[in-house]
């Protein structure tokens, strides 16, 4: 297969364009400028890597995000960096033809391709809640994973389970690491993940032929190393104690911190605060809405989204922990007084 540099030349692009591109993606991948020569060298010598992109239970928001990547352009990644051999959503072919192609690609590039998984497999009813090409997605996934060099878990579905795995999880949807246990898995959570993070992860895999440095949860450190809260431009308002209390109050107009209206920035690891969305245009908090923690495990079960504290998870108790705590403390104090009086009488 041809290398990136060769592809560049074939498209009539100059060496200058090529170097500019190399420098940009070095930055995007979170690498220091001293790495630029290595990136250039990799781009000159590394052949394009075959990628199989499969879809399970999902909403396609990851694909939607991906195709909007601006630096680098998703089309550049797709056409010059990887060779996307299978993707039932993006490919022109469909049905039996593409399924057959998948099987052939697995054989042809055995041990050398990257498997990208969007969505997750439901285990209930032997996987029948999600069927692709007449087979349970669960089976497809296991089959395709066997010959993969590395696996990318796109989005919160593949990484954590997301909405379909929220309580009570009727289809027993599970994150892919419950099914694929013998391959390196790179979790790229988010609902969806940021486009530039997606392309950044792919580029790292392709250029360095290695898995990027991961944290203890299996997420790439360069993109998930910080809380939104620790990179948020509204942090000064948090530290100053200037909080929005309602979405139509004065503080909201002044752009104060959204902590009290449920912002999950303090407990969410993602790059929204620095890379932002839509080519760096904005991100939810900048638009005046709190973070809902979409890149975190079980974020659907950590609601209500518009309250700072989640309700006590006991049956029939719909109350926040401070109310329950204060009621119990008051009951303990009252009980103590009553018990004390009775004890005094009993011990006369």
């Amino acid at each position: 297969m041809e290398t990136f540099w060769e592809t560049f030349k074939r498209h009539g692009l100059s060496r200058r364009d090529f170097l500019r591109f190399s420098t940009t993606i070095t930055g995007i991948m979170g690498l220091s400028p001293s790495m630029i020569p290595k990136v250039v060298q990799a781009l000159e010598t590394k052949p394009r890597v075959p990628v199989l992109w499969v879809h399970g239970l999902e909403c396609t928001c990851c694909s939607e995000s991906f195709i909007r990547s601006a630096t680098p352009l998703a089309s550049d990644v797709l056409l010059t960096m990887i060779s996307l051999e299978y993707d039932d959503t993006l490919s022109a072919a469909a049905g039996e033809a593409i399924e057959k192609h998948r099987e052939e690609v697995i054989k042809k590039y055995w041990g050398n391709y990257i498997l990208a998984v969007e969505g997750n497999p439901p285990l209930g009813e032997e996987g029948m809640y999600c069927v692709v090409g007449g087979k349970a997605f669960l089976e497809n996934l296991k089959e395709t994973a066997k010959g993969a060099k590395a696996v990318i878990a796109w989005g919160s579905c593949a990484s954590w389970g997301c909405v379909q795995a929220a309580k009570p999880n009727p289809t027993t949807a599970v994150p892919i690491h419950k099914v694929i246990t013998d391959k390196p898995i790179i979790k790229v959570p988010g609902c969806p993940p940021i486009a530039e993070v997606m392309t950044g992860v792919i580029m790292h895999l392709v250029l360095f032929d290695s898995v990027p440095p991961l944290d203890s949860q299996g997420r790439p450190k360069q993109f998930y190393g910080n809380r939104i809260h620790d990179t948020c431009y509204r942090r000064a308002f948090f530290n100053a104690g200037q909080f929005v209390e309602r979405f139509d109050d004065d503080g909201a107009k002044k752009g104060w911190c959204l902590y009290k209206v449920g912002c999950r920035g303090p407990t969410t690891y993602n790059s929204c605060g620095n890379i932002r969305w839509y080519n760096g245009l904005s991100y939810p908090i900048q638009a005046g809405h709190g973070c809902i923690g979409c890149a975190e495990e079980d974020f659907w079960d950590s609601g209500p989204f518009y309250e700072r504290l989640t309700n006590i998870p006991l049956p029939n108790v719909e109350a926040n922990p401070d109310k329950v705590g204060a009621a119990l403390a008051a009951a303990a104090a009252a009980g103590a007084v009553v018990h004390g009086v009775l004890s005094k009488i009993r011990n006369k």
Partner: protein
Amino acid sequence: METKRFYIFSPGLRLWHWVNFFAILALFITGLYIGNPFFLGPIGYEATYAYDKGITMDLIRKIHFVAGYVFLSGFIFRVIIALFSKRDRLIIPPFWRRDYWIGLKEITLKYSLIMRDKEGNEYIRNAYARSVYPLIYLLFLFMIITGFAMYGMSNPGGLWASLFGWIIPLLGGEFMTHMWHHWIAWIIIIFAILHFYLVVREELIKQNGELTSMFTGYKVFEKEPVDIEDIKE
């Protein structure tokens, strides 16, 4: 009736108890504000300049963290004194001894007002107290682990994160770690209320110096406590 004073609590334990008390008080009040900032900080300043004007979230979190370090140091100190002196090991409930189980029965009857407090045996520490304190120490440890995990994760590669960060996935993510930290805070406060009441109750009924024992180190008994061996060096 003749009474006898017994020296029970070491100076180290007494010091720890009160340092810990004030640390928890500070942690709880500041913690409640962190969980739900019920008043706003200084208004009328640009946020960048407001963080050090009056009582701000920044200040309250700083107090929480300083008190957290005090609480941690106290905990380590408490473990060390227990290693070196027998009387500081009263927190281990002696399940293997008959007098513990008899004591458990007696204190149950006394607290249910069936038995009078002056009847039965004397104990330097009743069986409920002996069973509950170790659990409270575990909750202290839980607060330290979750607290320093949340504190440390602003730098995931740092010392605190590598020491305690493992707790976060076990509790189901960082948001749930906050919630657990919050719930257990209330349990500790409810313990403190009942604990304070039971100390006062003992004093009111027996006038045995219970209330002041955590200052003076002494309690007064009419007969020799059956578990006296536990503090004889």
